[in-house]
């Protein structure tokens, strides 16, 4: 163990403003729409989206970060909204499956999910879509002009479970959509 000289003082004086534990106004920007919710700091982003914003696309599957049904984007990152506190998303752009379609046109990924029959019951589908679009953006569905590697797609979709086991159709849909994105 090494001990260095104390850090510079002066910036330690002020404590960050504390909010809660009761309800506090929390401004959020979801799919470019501003909301202000009166919620406790312990409320998850998933609950805020579903119960506060009325955006029920993101689904509550396990509520413990295992299944991926609640996947949304915070800024460019795909995250589990069940393990994210809504209040921690103040000042950050949140995108849900409701924000994928633009101007009444489905996103290419949504069209390919339909074309490839990439779901049965559909409960996991919003999370699958948000992971799938992020996966392509992250470069895991092949470089432009290249064929996607199904094994690579599967690996990078492993955080989204599908109890109907539509996995082969999901992989095919993502590979097809990647060529159009």
């Amino acid at each position, binding site marked *: 163990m090494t001990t260095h000289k104390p850090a510079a003082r002066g910036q330690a004086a002020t404590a960050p403003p504390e909010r809660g534990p009761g309800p506090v106004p929390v401004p959020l920007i979801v799919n470019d729409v501003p909301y202000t919710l009166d919620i406790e700091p312990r409320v998850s982003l998933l609950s805020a989206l579903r119960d506060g914003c009325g955006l029920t696309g993101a689904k509550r599957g396990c509520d*413990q970060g295992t299944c991926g049904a609640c996947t949304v984007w915070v800024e460019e990152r795909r995250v589990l909204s069940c393990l*994210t506190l809504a209040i921690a998303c103040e000042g950050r752009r949140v995108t849900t499956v409701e924000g994928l379609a633009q101007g009444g046109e489905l996103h290419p990924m949504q069209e390919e999910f339909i074309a490839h029959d990439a779901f049965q019951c559909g409960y996991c589908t919003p999370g699958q879509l948000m992971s799938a679009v992020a996966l392509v953006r992250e470069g895991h569905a092949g470089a432009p002009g290249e064929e996607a590697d199904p094994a690579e797609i599967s690996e990078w979709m492993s955080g989204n479970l599908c109890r109907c086991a539509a996995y082969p159709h999901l992989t095919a849909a993502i590979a097809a959509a990647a060529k159009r994105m």
Partner: protein
Amino acid sequence: MRPVSYARATAPAEAVAAVAADPGGAYLAGGTTAVDLLRQNVLRHDRLVDIGDLPLAGIEETPAGGLRIGALTRMSDAAAHPLVRERFPLIAEALELGASPQLRAMATMGGNLLQRVRCAYYRDAVSPCNKREPGTGCSALGGINRGHAILGTSEHCIATHPSDLAVALTALDARVHTLRGAGERSFHIDDFLLPPGDTPHIENPLEHGELITAIEVPDTPTARTSRYLKIRDRASYEFALTAVAATLRLENGRISGVRLALGGVATTPWRARHAERLLLGAAAEPGVFDEAARAELAEARTTPMNAFKAELARRAVVRVLRTLAATPEGQA
């Protein structure tokens, strides 16, 4: 989840002061452990200080040729970083074989080192557990312990350390830099992740409110030929039954440099120093690899359910060393 208050810190010293002043205070970074375990009543903090805005993300070279990885760097960003992939491929592999893409996009490098064990008795919030409620006993000793540790255990706790990243960092002699009210300090990773002994509830030497600011990985030329092998029940998104982080350097068929650490089998990331001593200077042959692996695992203490891990770990060590020995870059 029980009620919590929330504050977002804008400076590291401010965050440290806020948490240190309140026994119920804790940091919130990626949240993948904190939110999960607060909701399950395993953690019981009532004040969260969000450190997400602190300037502690990013990766830079150190003057000595190593890397300094900011504590708030996301696992996904660290794994994708060109310097990490080029100089420390075992770190990138360990990161990408851990958790899921979403969890890696949330979880931070500092938080990864503080993640809690996956022992079901610890996480159910009701079973006797010396880690969660000191003195209540260990339910895993006579319970379902197929995934539990065979090295570094005590009569008080046999929970396996869950991090993949920490295994790679242990092989590389990484250091953990921290900030507390009294100033900065740093720890060798061996002194940072503590075996359970008589105090399984003490997992690291951090004072209450002490903040990890960075992980430093020293320059390790042999790490350019390195591997992280992870063996688990599923093909992806699963904790290790056995993992091996290794670097290997050969000169004229003899081992001139080797680093070996085991994951998934011990209560801490397990630096296989006994095996390293046997390997250094020896011929790079499967029989030698096997002998070293057996020697390291000789002190394993198994249960009927996890006895398979000793053999699995032996085979994993031999396989990684054979793979690295066959890699052209490993030859001098």
